[in-house]
């Protein structure tokens, strides 16, 4: 599936027409992790007689298929433990796959660690020759390259000292210098950018930018640094739990990686902060009084600045008093609360268990990662003006989203559409703010066209209504899915099961809940809702009103158009 997507977008990536230098087909790799290591014959015999297998199988790679073309700068990212290093070692023929094949055309030099084979007892010169020999260069060939290696590393005065006397920075410089001059056709680097001081980082940077332009050299880089991916890579791949989660556009991959990390952080925080109360374990922020409070995304978690982020809040509150939902939007990267709705702004009318929906326009903001924290509040018993917090949706119950738009900058929070600093002196020439110049409309051409079309008040009203109805429709679709899922859960509890496979990840994302493998085998389409269940959801009063108004506006527009035609 992922390959098809990449193939469809072939024209947009450079070097895709070049011959492939590395092909991985359906690579599987398992490791047997020893639970009781037998390092001696005695232990092995004991284990065998006891019937202890002594190991459990860990599936590290589960079917990886991709190819790299000549001249590409290919990035591989993923969280720790996802299988990146194993994949690299399989590509470098250090490990061999259990299933599947890897084929390489040309010379592939891996740098899993800089300075492989460096012996601290030998001098720098001897180590360079040794390392060169490991890579296959004879003494004569090394002699020719030696001077350029030393000058790249800037270690002319130190080559005859023993390597143990070098500082770690010098060692890394020397190792990188040998790696660079190795003239491989395919260079595979594993997180080597992480070490070294600033001048070394700059050297790496120069080298990478230079090699990026060389169509003869292919580089495969494994890194955790998303900035590096965005700067150098022509294409990237995200590995998650042994499978390819995303391959292709480097920005898309980098965003998804960021999202993955955010999610993981939240889950970790949630697990850490779980409380115990009345024999039950409550996640942080919840309790007997407020057993359910959860914010979840309805829109995609990655949105542009023209869109609104639509999200839902599911709560359960069974006490009699008034209660409110206060929603705070937290800027993850910059820190601080970007927007807060206020403690008593949204009063809930339905008690018990319910789900409500909100939308939040993000046009004012630059690119950023945000988390929504919702708290359930009741009027304070002491003072009616203030509220007390009964529950809060944090950790796993919070919801994150990312704003990305080409018009946006990355540094500050507010975009130029929110506000700009205008110069008041003649001595200051204002060039442009992030692509916007004074006098330019602060909207995209698309939006401008839309604006022009709706200058007519009727048309504008119609557009507004349509937008509003679409929002409601999205929310309703969401509610339908939730209901179906609830029904599924009930069916499963009763033992009803059908088997039609769909990807569990899709289902999980729709619901925001974790389903066991078996239920994930049923598709939502299979779940049929009865008339009764459907009637509960259709025809909210607001929607009915909006549709009526839309019909009226449409009639007016048609009447107006006909009137104009008659006039002509």
């Amino acid at each position: 599936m992922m390959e098809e997507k990449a193939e469809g977008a072939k024209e947009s990536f450079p070097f895709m027409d070049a011959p492939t230098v590395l092909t991985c087909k359906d690579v599987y790799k398992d490791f047997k992790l020893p639970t009781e290591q037998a390092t001696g014959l005695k232990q092995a015999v004991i284990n065998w007689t006891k019937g202890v297998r002594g190991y459990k199988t860990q599936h590290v790679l589960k079917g990886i298929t991709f190819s790299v073309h000549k001249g590409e700068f290919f990035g591989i990212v993923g969280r720790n433990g996802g299988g990146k290093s194993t994949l690299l070692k399989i590509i470098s023929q250090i490990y061999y796959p259990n299933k599947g094949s890897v084929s390489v055309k040309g010379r592939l030099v891996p740098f899993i660690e800089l300075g492989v084979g460096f012996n601290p007892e030998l001098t720098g010169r001897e180590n360079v020759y040794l390392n060169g020999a490991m890579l296959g260069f004879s003494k004569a060939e090394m002699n020719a390259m030696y001077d350029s290696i030393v000058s790249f590393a800037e270690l002319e005065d130190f080559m005859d000292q023993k390597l143990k006397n070098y500082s770690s920075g010098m060692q890394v410089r020397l190792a990188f210098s040998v790696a660079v001059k190795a003239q491989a056709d395919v260079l595979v680097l594993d997180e080597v950018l992480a070490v070294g001081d600033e001048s070394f980082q700059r050297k790496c940077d120069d080298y990478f930018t230079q090699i990026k332009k060389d169509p003869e050299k292919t580089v495969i880089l494994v890194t955790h640094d998303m900035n590096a991916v965005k700067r150098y890579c022509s294409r990237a791949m995200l590995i998650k739990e042994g499978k390819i989660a995303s391959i292709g556009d480097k920005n898309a991959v980098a965003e998804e990686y960021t999202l993955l990390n955010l999610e993981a952080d939240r889950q970790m925080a949630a697990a850490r902060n779980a409380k115990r109360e009345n024999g039950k374990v409550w996640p942080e922020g919840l309790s007997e009084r407020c057993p359910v409070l959860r914010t979840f995304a309805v829109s995609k978690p990655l949105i542009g600045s023209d869109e609104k982020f639509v999200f839902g809040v599911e709560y359960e509150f069974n006490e009699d008093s008034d209660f409110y939902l206060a929603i705070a939007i937290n800027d993850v990267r910059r820190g601080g609360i970007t927007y807060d709705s206020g403690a008593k702004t949204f009063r809930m009318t339905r008690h018990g268990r319910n789900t409500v929906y909100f939308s939040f326009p993000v046009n004012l903001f630059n690119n950023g990662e945000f988390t929504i924290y919702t708290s359930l509040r009741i009027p304070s018993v002491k003072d009616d003006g203030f509220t007390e917090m009964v529950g809060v949706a944090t950790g796993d119950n919070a919801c994150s989203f990312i704003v990305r738009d080409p018009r946006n900058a990355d540094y500050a929070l507010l975009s130029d559409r929110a506000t700009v600093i205008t110069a008041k002196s003649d001595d200051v020439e204002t060039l442009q703010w992030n692509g916007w110049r004074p006098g330019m409309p602060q909207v995209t051409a698309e939006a401008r066209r839309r604006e022009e079309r709706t200058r007519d008040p009727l048309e504008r009203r119609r557009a507004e209504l349509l937008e509003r109805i679409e929002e409601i429709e999205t929310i309703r679709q969401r509610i339908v899915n939730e209901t179906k899922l609830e029904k599924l859960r009930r069916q499963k509890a009763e033992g009803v099961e059908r088997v039609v496979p769909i990807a569990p990840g899709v289902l999980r994302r729709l619901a925001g809940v974790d389903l066991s493998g078996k239920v994930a085998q049923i598709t939502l389409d299979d779940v049929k809702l009865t008339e009764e269940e459907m009637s509960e959801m259709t025809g909210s009063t607001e929607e009915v009103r909006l549709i009526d108004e839309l019909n009226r506006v449409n009639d007016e527009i048609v009447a107006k158009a006909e009137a104009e035609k008659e006039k002509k």
Partner: protein
Amino acid sequence: MGDPLLFFVMISSVKRAHAAAKAIKPSTSKIRRNWIILKALVHTDFKLRYQGSFLGVIWSVLEPLMMFAVMYVVFAKFLRMSDGTRTYPVVLLLGISSWQFVTDSTNVGLRSIVDRGDMLRKVHFPNYIVVVAATMGALITYGINLGVVLIFAFAYRVDFTWRVVLVPLNIIELYCVTLGLTLIMATMYAYYRDIAHIWDVLQQVIMYGMPIVYPLSYVLRRRGIVGKLGKLELLNPFAQFIQDIRHNLIAPATQQTIWNLFPNSLWYVKAVPILLMLILFFLGIFVFSKNSKRFAEVM
């Protein structure tokens, strides 16, 4: 496992390859690349062996000289082991240094995979090169020792015969059986470290079951079953090849080998050491290459 390099090793004296390619791209020929790595490893090992010592490389000659002095005083002068010939001390020293080659080779070689584990886990190259490098190192030391033995041989005025030409062949035979055994043990050591201790004991047993420090005639002269079975000591390929070396280099008249100790009718008995050598050699290659892919993971 059709890699030519191992056959290359067997014909080691013919190797020195053609001139290097002029271009500064590394040689793409696999054989050449492996050879370069082998040379580098052996060279490095040798340099590291005498690291930090004052006398440095001179030890590689001094050490055997001093060892021989001790052996000579103990065995030839003190214990008066002799098979009656004038040149017995030289024969003794030759035997000792040949066996030392075997122990050196096996002790370092069987640990070589594990010791170089970090390299195997980071770079791809054929694993057997590491073991071959260890045995080559021992071979070089053996060569130096042989030089010292030759000096002693001249001092004792040994009459060299045409048989000297056969000595390189015998050394090759000894090398092959040692390499085969080392490959097997190196594979086992990667999984079970016990093999090192087992081999420690085993090599003592083998050594005393061979006519190295005592002449075979001592055993053959004994009465009863021991005397009769004494000849069987030569079925051991190590014993037989070392005896061959002594026989061809120093004393063809008096040194017993399987060729002159058994009657021609028992030709199948004479073939046993060579057969064992071939079995060990090919078994070593087979076992090693089967497991070689997993070394990086096991360590």
